[in-house]
């Protein structure tokens, strides 16, 4: 009896390389590019930051991206399935990544909803003269009491419900008609709107003082190890690596795909957008400082403060403020939404593989409970506190720790790097040989260990954000621990008989060579045939026959 090593149900594909690249860029270009990078660069050497940033991109970000692509493409499944096929025990690491995506997905929705509301507010500049008081008081109705409450804020609840409805529709439509098409619409819109925002910002009075502050190099910063850690952290969190997204997306690629060539385009597109964001944001902040008669240092901010307090202030004061508002919040909305669908797809793919169910069932099984939890926790007067703690802990003890565990498991324990290197090099225009293995097996884990250790020290020596200790214990440490316990439990559940986490490495290599030498071909519907036209369904469905 043949053991099925690929999903028995036909696996979806992106249909074209460009659709995959666009979706991967859509995932990588998110809120962090717009509201995190400019601040990180400014605080860590200004113009000099480009040096550690590019070194981190080339030595850590791109190698990690290639690793995700190699795992997803070779083992052809969601994160838990692909990692289980590397070595059975590694399924737990895959579920860890999936649960990280669950947490990020449930709070990402509320930020996308805020962006949508602020896009509408931009027309009338509804925040008035005090954007800070409006955001925290009128809009979020933030409570002084740091505890989870269920007093809902309708102006956040309804848009958040709409965001989840939009996510549900995109996910139900599938990889090609949903994810790929959404990115095909939203990514060009994002680029055009953001470019327009940058151009308009450059014409504001004081814009060049802002750029001056942003790009003036502080060369002494290069001697500071924290600057290098910041560069690695920015690249790591910005590229969507290490938490299942790129593994899942790569599993939807056709067999014959230029993995490293596509990966380089995704990585450089992400960085190009980030630098552009730095120009746009600091040109606008230069105007804000100029209008207030202060220095850039007094107005510079990151994250929520930059997007929902500083920018509304700029919009109120700037000529054509409504235009800047629509362009800025439209960009945030599209960047956030395309990243969010990639995060949710990680969970859907994993559930689909594990239970062997149809897409609509998996989408319902995932999106409905996630949206309910999201709508219970975040559109409330205490939602911002939970979001802040979730975000701080899931980034460090979810994404970072999970990625580190995967890199160590693949490179040091299962010792699959030579095999994955061969896979990447055989398929791609840019080889990933010894240097890639040294970076993934040596440089990347050491950098991740250093970052994680530093975060552990900072979060254990003082209570995060000045919140009550029990609040951080539950929603920070408790949530992080629950991710690991949940991953272990999920990995213990049996796979459906339709999908088994077994894999024949030798045959996979043989077939890949067949594709590259032109003996084997893949049709658009996923069937594989020889040059003479004989369909070889057994190639991908019953490898152990």
């Amino acid at each position, binding site marked *: 009896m043949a053991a099925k090593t690929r999903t028995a149900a036909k696996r979806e594909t992106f249909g*074209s*390389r*460009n659709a995959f690249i666009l979706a991967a860029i859509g995932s990588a270009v998110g809120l962090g590019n717009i509201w995190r990078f400019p601040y990180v660069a400014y605080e860590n050497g*200004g*113009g*000099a930051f*480009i040096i550690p940033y*590019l070194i981190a991109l080339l030595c850590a970000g791109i190698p990690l991206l290639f690793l995700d692509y190699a795992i997803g493409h070779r083992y052809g499944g969601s994160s838990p399935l692909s990692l289980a096929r590397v070595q059975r025990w590694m399924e737990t690491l895959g579920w860890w990544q999936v649960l990280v995506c669950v947490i990020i997905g449930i709070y990402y929705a509320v930020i996308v909803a805020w962006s949508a509301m602020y896009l509408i507010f931009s027309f009338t500049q509804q925040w008035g003269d005090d954007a800070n008081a409006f955001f925290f008081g009128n809009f979020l109705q933030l409570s002084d009491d740091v505890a989870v409450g269920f007093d809902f804020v309708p102006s956040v609840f309804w848009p958040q419900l709409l965001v989840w409805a939009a996510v549900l529709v995109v996910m139900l439509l599938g990889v090609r008609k949903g994810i790929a098409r959404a990115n095909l619409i939203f990514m060009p819109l994002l680029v055009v709107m953001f470019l327009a925002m940058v151009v308009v910002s450059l014409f504001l009075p004081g814009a*060049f003082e802002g*750029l*001056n502050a*942003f*790009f*003036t*190099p502080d060369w002494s910063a290069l001697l500071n190890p924290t600057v290098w850690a910041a560069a690695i952290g920015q690249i790591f969190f910005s590229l969507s690596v290490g938490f299942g997204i790129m593994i899942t997306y790569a599993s939807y690629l*056709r067999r*014959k*795909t*230029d993995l490293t*060539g*596509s990966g*380089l*385009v995704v990585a*450089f*597109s992400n*960085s*190009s957008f*980030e*630098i552009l964001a730095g*120009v746009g944001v600091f040109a606008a902040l230069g105007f804000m400082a100029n209008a207030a008669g202060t220095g850039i240092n007094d107005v510079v901010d990151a994250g929520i403060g930059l997007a929902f307090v500083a920018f509304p202030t700029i919009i109120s004061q700037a000529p054509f403020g409504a235009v800047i508002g629509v362009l800025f919040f439209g960009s945030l909305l599209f960047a956030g939404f395309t990243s969010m669908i990639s995060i949710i797809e990680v969970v859907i793919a994993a559930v689909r593989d594990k239970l062997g169910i149809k897409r609509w069932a998996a989408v319902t099984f995932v999106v409905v409970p996630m949206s309910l939890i999201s709508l219970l926790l975040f559109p409330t007067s205490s939602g911002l506190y939970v979001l802040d703690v979730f975000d701080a802990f899931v980034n460090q003890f979810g994404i970072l720790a999970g990625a580190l565990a995967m890199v160590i498991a693949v490179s040091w324990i299962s010792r699959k790097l030579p095999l994955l290197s061969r896979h990447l090099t055989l*398929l*791609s*225009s*840019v080889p990933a040989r010894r240097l890639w293995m040294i970076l993934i097996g040596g440089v990347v884990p050491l950098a991740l260990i250093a970052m994680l250790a530093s975060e552990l020290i900072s979060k254990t020596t003082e209570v995060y954000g000045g919140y009550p200790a029990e609040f951080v214990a539950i929603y920070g440490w408790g949530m992080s621990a629950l991710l690991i316990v949940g991953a272990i439990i999920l990995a213990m559940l049996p796979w459906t008989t339709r999908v088994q986490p077994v894999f024949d490495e030798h045959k996979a290599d043989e077939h890949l060579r067949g594709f*590259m030498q032109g003996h084997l071909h893949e049709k658009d519907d996923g069937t594989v045939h020889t040059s003479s036209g004989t369909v070889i369904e057994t190639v991908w469905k019953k490898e152990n026959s």
Partner: protein
Amino acid sequence: MTGAALTMMIISLTLVWGGLAVVATNLIKRGTDRD
């Protein structure tokens, strides 16, 4: 803008956007797959 800031801005934009142009050209011309 000071000369140093202007220089770093030009270098930064050239490196990332130029890098993107190079890798995109490589993919179009030498890519092992076709759309």
